[in-house]
């Protein structure tokens, strides 16, 4: 499945990916970081990812951000004043922690806050299964171009092993 996701990103010409780790997306980070077709940029803080991806797309390349839902919450100001204001198109893959598949005590508040903030900002969010990502991610990129804004795709489960 990871190979299919990478192949789909490659065929969609998305070669620059930046992120900050979440346990669910670590296998994808590892796969991207170890594949010479891609440039994976590990950012120290999630807000940077939204800046890095915006810079890459304003310089003419396609990009994707991968962060946990709490990472988007860390980045809301940057998202509003950079990504929305400059209309920068890219894909944001979110590990949406704290839902029905999570029993960690530290995750449910992230889930609620992410739901509230994205609804409050009227942000388009598409929830997807991991196995559907190879088909969804190129569509998400195409939508981001048309809409002139990032497209959010969430996963609410660990990737299948």
């Amino acid at each position, binding site marked *: 499945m990871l190979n299919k996701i990478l192949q789909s990103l490659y065929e969609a010409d998305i070669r620059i990916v930046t992120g900050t780790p979440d346990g669910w997306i670590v296998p994808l980070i590892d796969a991207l970081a170890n594949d010479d077709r891609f440039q994976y*940029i590990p950012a120290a803080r999630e807000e940077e990812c939204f800046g890095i991806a915006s*810079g890459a797309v304003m310089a003419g390349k396609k990009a994707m951000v991968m962060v946990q839902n709490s990472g988007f919450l860390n980045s809301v100001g940057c998202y509003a004043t950079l990504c929305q204001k400059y209309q920068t198109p890219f894909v944001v893959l979110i590990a949406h922690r704290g839902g029905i598949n999570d029993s960690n005590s530290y995750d449910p508040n992230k889930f609620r806050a992410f739901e509230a903030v994205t609804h409050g900002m009227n942000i388009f969010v598409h929830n997807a299964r991991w196995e559907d990502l190879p088909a969804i991610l190129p569509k998400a990129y195409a939508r981001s171009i048309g809409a002139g804004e990032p497209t959010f795709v969430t996963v609410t489960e660990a990737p299948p092993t």
Partner: protein
Amino acid sequence: MKQLEAFELLTAFAEKHDALIVADIGSQSLWLKAVKDRVQNLYLSGPMGQASSVALGVAAAQKERLVIAACGDGALGMNMTSLATISYVAPKNLIVAVMDNGVYEFTKGLPTPTLGVKWAKVPGTFPGFKKTFAVDALDTISDPFGGPYFIHADIEPGPLPPGPGLPAVIAHDRFKNYLTGAAKTTASPQQC
């Protein structure tokens, strides 16, 4: 040194190397534009402190071009983690410059907490940065693509820069169009 003079030096260096400049909101974008409104300039009129991160993205996308982040000291103080990221990724074509006047110029000249930072020592803490240069010593950078480098501009607080800035979407469009020949607004395949 006044911030205007620092941007004159930075622009002359950028023109010599056909470099791209990404500038932070407020003083940096407006002083840079006041010196010379180059199509190679990307003005960030929204986010505080994102010039270094946006410049890292530009540098990743345009590896053949030299890219300069023109940061305010207050702004870079809000995105200090970007120095760790840049140090780790270490793109050879990226230069981060800090315009260090010790104040938030657009916020009534309030002192910045980065008065507690020794900017010249950035490469000591973030060793991916090869060296710090003073802004009046840019001529001594013998290998601009041997970075990343850090530039410290020790400037004095001064008057606010002249406006207006470039609207955000136009800044985006112009920069992308210059680099790719395709404007943002025409990049989408239309499905009517």
